[in-house]
Every structure is written in C-alpha cells, then in structure tokens.
C-alpha cells in the first residue's frame, strides 16, 4: 500500500504503483500486446471498424458467462455446465419461436426462467445436498448436452427467421432522426456520456478518499489514468460510430456489467460473496447465510448462461447441436485472466470483461490469420495457464 502522497518523485510513485498493482496492469499490457500483434499480422485488418464490431458481437456471450462465473469463482466453486446450459437454452428459444410461433421476447423470458430453474437445481445440490460444485456441474455438462441433442433431434439445426431476435447479436442501435448518415451520432453521444460519468464517479471517489485521509495517487498520475482510459473508450466509440454504430450486444453486456458491478461493490449481497470467498467459516459465524448466498450465485450463473445462449443463437441466427462446446473454458479463463484469485475471495467483474477481451481478441485475431482451430485451442490453453501461474506467483509474493 502506498503512503499518502507526500513530496516524492512522480517517477518513483509510478514505479511504486506499477509494482504493487503488477497483477492488474499485466492484464492491460497483455491486451495491448495482443491487439498490436494481430493488427500487425493482419495488416491493419484487426482494427478495422467492421472487425471491432464483429469482435464485440463474438465476445458478447462469453462476457455474459464470465460475469456470472466471476461470482462462482470468488466463492471458490466452479460451474462447468454453463456451455451446454447456454446451448440447451438457445435451442429451446429457437424451438419456441419457430415451432410454436411464440413472440421472441416472451420466448427469451421463458428461457431465462428455465435458466433460473437449472441454477436452482444445481445450487440446491451443491448447498443442501453437499455434492461438490465440480461434480454437480460436470454431471450438468452431460445432462444438458444430452438435452440439447434431444431438443434438436427431430429438426437438426434450426434456422431462425426472426429479425428482432437475430438483431440482438447482429444489429446496431438506431441513430437519432437527425443523423447525417456518415457518422453515428447516438453512439458518439453514448460514448461522451460514458466518459463523463466515469470521470465524475472516479473524481468523486478520489475526493471522498482525500476527505478521509486515505492514500490516493497524486493528481498527475490520476489525470494520466483518466486521459488514457477516456482516449481508449473514445477511440473505440469513434471507430464504431464511423461504421454502423454501437452493437446491441454491447448494450446488453453493458447493462449486465453495471448491474453486477453495483451488486458486488455496493450491496450487502456483494459483501457477503467476497466474505464467503475469503473465509466461509468466518462468514458463517458473522451471521451470513452461506448456503443462501451460494444458491443465489448458482441461480445467477445459470440465468446468465441462458442469456448467453440467446445471444449465441441470435449470433448464428440458428440453433445447432454443437452450440456450447468449450464455452466454460472461455468463461473461466476470462475470469482468471481478469484477476479472480484462484484461492477465491478476490475479483471484479469489470476486470473480468478485460479478460474476456483478451481471450476473444485471441480467437478473433487467430481466425483472421487463418490459424487452424486445433492450434487455437493449444494457444488459448497456454495463455490461460500462464495467466493463472502468474496470478499464483504474484499473490504468493505479496503476502
């Protein structure tokens, strides 16, 4: 922990911050390195507006899964079933829309409730019956893979001819009526508002800390950080705005992210999740209902898996029997790369999103380069292991 900023050199302060937060900064450095590498290898193709929009749509379902997985991993559990729960729920949505001609929004709602029920089932097994999460969800992996195949047994892959549904992961938000067509005004506006809100909240937080005499980074460091983040956000927004605007997927992920970030940081439930992950026995003796909170996390996970299934199905505009394969690895890797501690109790959903970007940039970049899928698995596996090994080592030292 840095001392309150007395008169010491800016250089040494930056070095100090780098040193004590190396874990967090590594993640950003990795992301930048990956992006620069692929931009170079694809002669700029990676950073083109169309590909950025594509990347966001591709990353959407993984981001949703990873947010839910972050809670599960903070609690020192695991959920291996998310991939096929997503696949199964997507297939159910497809059947409801194509075979029973149910309105797509109602179909989505039904599927989310289905996800909640799956979460209740798995969470109850873990908390009340006492089956370890690893076993429960490994069994879930089999069960929902089977159910996915059964659902699509008669029809095979279902093509969904529903524009509203497909827009979720392919469409863009509409522009304001007075837009001029060459640039997407609403997207720009959202970007500007987001940056202002971020700076405002960071400033408020900083002032609050100053008020209570807590350690804060010095003003130049703070401003540099703000400028850096603002520039990145605005650059992405600008690229998107000059293309078709903000994808709906980004909006959905943004909303889920804000809800979960608020929940983890501001509410009692969030505190309890960190507490149980940090020391479950101490949490129990502090009057926290450990089983209830854990059950909630599993319900939230499976509901988000259902949402991810909807996004994935919408992205492909069809439901296929192979949907869900390997999603859990992407979600778990995102969380760990994003800094969730392997020993539990530590993690932030905002960082998890960065982890998702790392993993999905790898996928997207390697696809652009035409790398064989088999090699992709190997590369992703290696990156995942390096991230976790790095995490374990750096945390071990800081103790």
């Amino acid at each position: 922990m840095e001392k309150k900023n007395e008169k010491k050199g800016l250089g040494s302060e930056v070095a100090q911050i780098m040193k004590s937060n190396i874990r967090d900064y590594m993640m950003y450095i990795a992301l930048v390195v990956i992006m620069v590498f692929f931009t170079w290898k694809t002669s700029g193709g990676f950073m083109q507006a169309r590909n950025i929009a594509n990347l966001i749509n591709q990353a959407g379902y993984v981001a949703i899964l990873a947010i839910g997985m972050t809670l599960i991993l903070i609690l020192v559990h695991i959920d291996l079933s998310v991939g096929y729960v997503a696949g199964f729920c997507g297939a159910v949505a497809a059947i409801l829309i194509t075979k029973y001609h149910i309105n797509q929004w109602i179909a989505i709602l039904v599927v989310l409730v289905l996800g909640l029920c799956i979460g209740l089932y798995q969470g109850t097994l873990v908390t009340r019956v006492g089956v370890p999460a690893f076993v429960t969800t490994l069994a879930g992996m089999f069960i929902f893979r089977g159910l996915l195949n059964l659902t699509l047994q008669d029809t095979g892959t279902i093509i969904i001819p529903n524009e509203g549904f497909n827009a979720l992961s392919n469409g863009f938000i509409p522009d304001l009526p007075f837009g001029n067509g060459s640039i997407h005004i609403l997207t720009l506006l959202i970007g500007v508002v987001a940056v202002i809100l971020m700076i405002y909240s960071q400033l408020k937080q900083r002032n609050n800390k100053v008020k209570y005499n807590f350690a804060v980074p010095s003003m130049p460091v703070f401003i540099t950080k703000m400028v850096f983040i603002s520039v990145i956000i605005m650059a992405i927004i600008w690229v998107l705005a000059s293309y078709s605007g903000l994808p709906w997927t980004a909006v959905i992920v943004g909303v889920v992210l804000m809800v979960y970030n608020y929940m983890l940081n501001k509410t009692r439930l969030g505190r309890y999740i960190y507490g149980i992950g940090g020391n479950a026995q101490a949490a129990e003796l502090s009057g926290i209902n450990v089983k209830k909170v854990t059950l909630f996390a599993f319900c939230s996970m499976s509901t988000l898996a259902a949402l991810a299934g909807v996004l994935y199905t919408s992205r492909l505009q069809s439901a296929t029997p192979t949907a869900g394969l390997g999603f859990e690895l992407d979600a778990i890797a995102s969380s760990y790369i994003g800094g969730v501690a392997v020993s539990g109790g530590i993690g932030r959903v905002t960082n998890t999103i960065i982890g998702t970007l790392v993993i999905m940039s790898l996928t997207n970049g390697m696809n652009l380069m035409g790398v064989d899928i088999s090699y992709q698995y190997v590369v992703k596996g290696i990156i995942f292991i390096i991230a976790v090994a790095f995490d374990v080592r750096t945390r071990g030292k800081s103790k």
Partner: protein
Amino acid sequence: MSEYILEMKNIVKEFPGVKALNDVNFKVKKGEIHCLVGENGAGKSTLMKVLSGVHPFGTYTGDIIYNDEVQQYKTIADSEEKGIVIIYQELALIPELSLYENVYFGHEIMKGKNIDWNETIVQGSEMLKKVGLDVDPSMKVKNLGVGKQQLVEIAKALSKNVKVLILDEPTAALNEDDSQNLLNLIRELKNQGVTSIMISHKLREITAIADTITVLRDGATICSMDCHEHEVTEAEIIKHMVGREMDNIYPKREKKEYGDIALELKDWTVEDPAKGREILHHVNINVRKGEIVGLQGLMGAGRTELALSVFGNPSGYKLTGGDVYVDGKQCHFKNPKAAIKEGVAYVTEDRKGNGLILIQDIRYNTTIANLESLTEGLAINQNEEIKVANEYKDAINIKAPSIEQKLSNLSGGNQQKVQLAKWMFVKPKVLILDEPTRGIDVGAKFEIYTLMNKLVEQGMSIIMISSELPEVLGMSDRLYVMSEGRITGEFTAEEATEQKVMAMAVKS
C-alpha cells in the same frame, strides 16, 4: 554411559514476538516413564516438537543429547531413524486403509522395488499383537474406536523400532477403560525397555504411572520430581503448575452492579455425531447483566463446543436436550444469524481460521456482521460505514495507518481488536469471548481487559472462556470450571484460588 538416554540442555525457541521456550532443561532416564505437565501454552508441545525435528535444528538454540551424542534433526524422519517416535493427540492414521497398511505406512517393507505385502501382513499382525489388539489386521482403521486406534499408533511406533516413545495427551479422547488399557500397555513397554515421555493433563493418571514428573511453566522448567524418592501428590503438581506471581495486569472495575440474568443455559446436553458420543452433559450456567463470568477448563474440556452449540450451532452438533434463555425468553437459534439477532455474539478463539476475513481490510471486517444497520435501500451507505469503522478504530486503539489496511498485515493483538470492534458494532447483550488474549502481547492484553470492563459497565454481559488461570481469576466476577463436558465447579471471585480451580479442571 550416563543414566540418561536423553538430555535437552538450555533449549531456547522463539516465535515472532513470543519466547515459547526459555532455557529449558529436560532429562529422561533410560527405560522410565516420564510425565511432562504444565498449563496450556507452557511449552510442552513445543519442546516435544523441538525434540522430534518438527522444529528443525537451527531454529532453536541449545543441545539435544541422545545416547551421549549431540543430535541435529532436520526432519521427523531423522529423529525416527534414531528411534524417537512422537504420537500426536490428533491421530495420524489413514481411516480407509487396513490396520497393517497403517502400521507400515511411510516405512513400507520392500522386496526390491515393490512392497512385500506378505511380510507386511505377517509383521503387522505381530506388532498389533504386541499392543494387545486382537482384531483382524485387514480391517479398516475407521471401523475401530478411538481407544483402539491409539493402540494402532503405538503398534506403528513399535514397527519403527522405537526407543523413546512420546505421547501427546494420549488419553484425552479416551474413556476410562480405554485409558486404563493404554496405561497398562505403556507399563508393559517399559518392561520391554522402551522409554516413554507422556504429556498429560490428567493428574490422577500421572501420579499413578510416572517415574519422573517434570513441570513446565511459561516456557521454563520449574522442577523435576522423582516419584520413587517421595510420593508426589496432585496438590504438589498443581502448586508447581500455577505457582506464578499474580502481577497487577488486570485493571480494576470501578462499579460492579449486576442486573437480571441475561443468558441462561438449563440442562444443556449436546452430542457430536462425528464422534458418536455426548460431548456436553447437562450444563447449567447463567450470566447476569454487567457481569463477567469466566469459563475455565483445559483444552478439550468442551468450552468452545459449548459456546458454538449455543451460538446457532454452525458445527452441526446434535442438541439432545436443554434450553437457552435470553433475557428470560426461551430461544432456539437455528444459525448464528438468529443468535446475533437476539443479541448473542461469539468471538472465536481461532481468529485466523474462522474469525476474520484476512484478505479484506479493517473497514470490511468491522461492519460485516451488522451491515443491515448501514443499508439504505439496496446499497450500503459507504460514507457512514467509513465513519463507523474509523470510530471503532480510534475507540479501541487499533494500530494501523488507515481502515483500508488489510488484516493480513496487522499484528495478532490488532487483529483481535478488529474482532472485538466487529462484535461491539453488533451491540450484543451477551458477548462470549473465546480465549480473547491468546497469542497477543501483554500490552494488547491489558487494553482488551480494560475494554471488557468498559463493556460490562455499560450493562453488557460477558462470558470469558479461557484456559489461562490467572486471567480467569483476575477478570471474572464469577467463574465456572469445566472438565470433560461437565461443569465441575462454580466459584465467586472471592472464593476462587488457583489450586481450587485447577483441582476442578483436572477432575474426571
């Protein structure tokens, strides 16, 4: 060759902040049964760990002389090779393996590169016979009772060709018959030339079996008594165990006014399903408003189990009988949350294990048990939270740069203060403190005692569980003594003396 098989000379062992052993001298004659006694924390276990190599050579100063040679054990394996075998209170058997597999676990009989199972079974059966275990050697350890498991441990020690057998409270978990069996076996081994060192709290057993008794107190050797020169009485041992001066380290309380009974247990009886036996037998205790009640007893007497079973029973014991009353109202706490709601708080003895969340900061830990009072709508009022945490930090003098300090960076005393802050913020009626001053320095102890006095003056009731006799005597208005799950005595502060209390605590 000298008459001593083992001599430990001028042993000093320091842990960060504590001198656990201060110039201890310990001599064991060949072929005798040597009993080592002392209060909890006197240094008995540490001394044995130094002897067996758990605390390796180099981490202590002083000499271990065994068979006239200076020894330098780096690991347990080194000392076992020389025939020094230690059996811990928590048995180290593998429940799912058979008896003979357990006997040779870790030093298997080999034929070339493979385990020689035939030889293992033959020799294993022989070892088991030697300790008087007449059972099928291929049965699993988990199917044996604790008493017989203890015998398997000794068989295991015999298979290592033991010369000096160290037993750490071997009879603590055993009933009367099993204890007698075990003691007879130790006598039998003595006839075969095995030297035994036994740590025990049960003075009756000690006076019955010991050839020599060494008393440790506060990390130093107090005396070594030869039981053949004169008959050593229990009273004599107790006198040596507790005979320290009472310093003026307990702050006096200005006013003592007791109100109504705040918490009462009637006929409280509890069974531990894991052990399959009753661990608390018809306990009747009460505490009044404005009163500090001490609950004294040695380790394993059932004090923590009593507190936990009342505090919402998180360990899942079977409450077989009895009632709890808070302010005269009968209560059934189905979890700690319910107990907290009715105003009962429990400060655990194991602050790292189940008390605090060490990876979080002071603020987090101060408010975690009472976030309800800080919640507005959905969100926690974090400004208010910071204010509260700062108030408590100042009020009870938690030494840290800010409330954002992670607990893993605080000293034991300051961690303990955070625990107290957390439970004070709950504003309970009854505060159960389990070993509130364990492992913290004298200065912090005084601060915690002062704080306890302040809390009861404000009308709170405190039950203080402690195995430190002077502390219980110095702080309590009234005290109960526990032994083996029973209340064996009740004293007012005026009546209680160390001798009386210790006599009750070792009663079985």
